[in-house]
């Protein structure tokens, strides 16, 4: 649907646009649901203003956006509390308006005025907006819009850090398992961004919330949902095996409980899951500093493990390295199983 015919009569300058958006969004409040016509009219006004904002920020196909106007609009919007207003009104906006908003959001956040990200700074002062966006994953209609907006926010360390440490972060463990695949996988990609975009922040968080986090994560790894198991396992190796998380990793591979999870996943009906599990399992085994409990488990199960490992094969180009590692791991398990000290 094209709104291009609205263009001529619209507000022209960035302050006018910001004000028009603010007024039209506020006008939504004064209309009650009973006034269907009036509400529709108010909504139309919002949509028109969003189109104006979009054209100012991203051009209209013929005219390139004016850099000065773009930063001025970003400034006005953060000054006039428009950011807070659009976020809170998001659930009642229409499809087109939400889409325009998502587009503008990514541009606005990136604007630097006097070497400051004015919109990001606004959000830093109004962090509850992030919680609001996270909770929106529960609303199927707007979940994907919010997901996009959240991922834009997560690009900025300060905002990512807030989400990571906020109470709403645990909601992701629920959202990634929502039955609606679109929403669940969008939530997962946000979850993944949070855990991988800023490695040192994540390392700090995991150090402080080790037990709490891995308790929750265990539920994902042992989920009955195939997609959850596969994604969470892959993500685990993505962040656990990153350099800044090496202390977390060392702690993780000492725990019998997590070894057992990996052993269960090695036996998963999915070959992909088996292979991903191997890449974490191997670290437990290769650890030269294995605790006695880990050694006992490996020794007790060595026959089954060797059988499993022997039947496991990599694919394509990964083959050679996989086989190499597998040999190493098999040898280590055999060595452990022969240890006299473990026999009681």
């Amino acid at each position, binding site marked *: 649907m094209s709104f291009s015919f609205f263009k001529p009569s619209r507000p022209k300058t960035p302050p006018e646009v910001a004000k028009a958006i603010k007024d039209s969004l506020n006008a939504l409040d004064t209309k009650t649901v009973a006034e269907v016509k009036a509400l529709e009219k108010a909504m139309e006004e919002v949509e028109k203003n969003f189109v104006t904002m979009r054209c100012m920020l991203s*051009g209209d196909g013929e005219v390139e956006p004016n850099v000065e106007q773009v930063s001025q609009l970003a400034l006005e919007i953060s000054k006039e509390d428009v950011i807070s207003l659009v976020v809170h009104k998001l659930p009642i906006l229409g499809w087109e308006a939400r889409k325009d908003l998502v587009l503008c959001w990514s541009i606005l956040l990136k604007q630097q005025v006097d070497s400051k990200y004015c919109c990001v700074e606004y959000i830093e002062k109004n962090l509850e907006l992030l919680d609001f966006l996270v909770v929106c994953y529960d609303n199927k209609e707007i979940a*994907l819009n919010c997901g996009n907006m959240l991922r834009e926010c997560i690009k900025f360390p300060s905002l990512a850090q807030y989400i990571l440490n906020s109470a709403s972060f645990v909601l992701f463990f629920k959202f990634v398992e929502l039955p609606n695949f679109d929403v669940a*996988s969008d939530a997962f990609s946000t979850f993944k961004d949070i855990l991988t975009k800023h490695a040192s922040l994540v390392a700090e968080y995991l150090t402080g919330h080790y037990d709490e986090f891995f308790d929750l994560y265990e539920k994902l790894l042992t989920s009955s949902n195939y*997609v959850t198991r596969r994604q969470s396992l892959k993500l685990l190796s993505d962040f656990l095996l990153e350099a800044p998380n090496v202390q977390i990793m060392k702690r993780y591979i000492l725990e019998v409980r997590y070894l057992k999870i990996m052993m269960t996943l090695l036996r998963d009906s999915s070959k*992909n899951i088996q292979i991903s599990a191997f*890449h974490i399992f191997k670290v437990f085994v290769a650890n*030269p*500093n294995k605790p006695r409990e880990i050694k006992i488990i490996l020794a007790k199960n060595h026959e089954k493990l060797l059988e499993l490992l022997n039947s496991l094969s990599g694919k*394509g*180009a990964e083959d050679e390295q996989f086989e190499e590692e597998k040999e190493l791991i098999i040898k280590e398990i055999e060595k452990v199983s022969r240890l006299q000290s473990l026999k009681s």
Partner: protein
Amino acid sequence: MAYEQEDHPKLQFPLDSNSYNTTAEIGAGVCSKVYTAQCLPINSTVVAIKSIDLDQSNADFRNLVGRETNTSSLLSHPNILNPHCSFTAGNRLWVVMPFMSGGSLESIISSSSPNGIQEKCIAIILKETLTALSYLHSQGHLHRDIKASNILLDDNGRVKLADFGVSSSFYASSSVYRLGSSTFSQYWMAPEVIHSHKDYSFKADIWSFGITALDSTKKFSETFQDMVASCLRKDPANRPTADELLKHPFFESCNGTSEFLAENLLRGLLSVEERFRAAGKILEEGVDCDPNGDRASSVLLNRPMSSIIEGKGNEDEEFEVHDPAFPVESTEAVIPCDDDGEEQQPAAGGRGNEVNAETMVNELMALMTSLDDQKEKVKKIINQLGSETIDREDELEKENARLRLELEREREQNLKLIQVINEEDQLLHQNERVRLELENEKLRLELEKLKMHISATSNTTSDDNN
């Protein structure tokens, strides 16, 4: 809302497999199957379900969690097929879509008469497809898998571009198709880039569109040829945008309606299910879960080259009609001459099979020789008839000139196609190389990582020992 007036605006399709009663298989790929099904809680509404085996995908799982399924719900256009919903059932992803009972353009082509589909119908279908493409591009989006099997028709002749969000791009290695200047996400282009004409990624869709057009018909009109040729220009910068292409005379003059399609194309065709059974083979869809798969090549190998060759045959027949005086000669002219007999064999054998670029080049070379041969024969005939009346001679000269022009055009077309093939070939090699390089890089990193852990952990040991 006004823009959600599509089929079932507020219907919530259930998110569990038990709510659907599958009735027939209508398509199959390497790791996916397509069924018709009744949605039991919603008055047994007929839907199509694409069931994808997620475990057969070797590709990095990250791509699956890409924004592919999501994007479809962020798009709304009458010519784009939006899935109702998707959910997982065990190792499979179920994508529930409106059932398009007219089937895919590919299945229509293969089950329609050997003379192909009339150009008027093709024009309507291509125009609708192009409208969808133009919308996608205006939204900063690439389709990346335009092909006849992704163009679907419903009972009423409405055309929808499908496999958007559930397509092979699902599994394709995004790095190969990475958009240099994309910032919004991998598949969304930054709005400031969309209109800047600095990025030619969109032109790849135009290319595929051209190939799909070629693939869809056997007889080309001149405007059609011109339209396709513009899509297949070597330099992407010279290819038209979707919007520009819509203004091409071929589409400008196309005023057909979906009713026309329903009446003239769909009526009397086998049902989608029957077509699938008749095909008795896997639909061209293999790229779905083949991480090595190269879509460009699959589009190319789909059928187009063989149909071009068949096309030539048909034009020669037309030539026969124009010149009824020499039916024997002209028929002979179509048959490859003896010297090149061997080389020309594949031209017939290649139909419908996968053909590699090299054989194609050979075939086209052979065809060119055959055209030269025809030209010689025409000359000979004209010489023989030198003693005829002046009127006759005039007529012949005109005819000769016409033929010469036609031959010239054919030759140009052939050259162009050879170029196309060579390019494709190069692309294939390049993609393969990029893929291998990536693979190597990944392996190297893995190894590095492992080494690091082992050294890190052994450090700990020695620390502890001290």
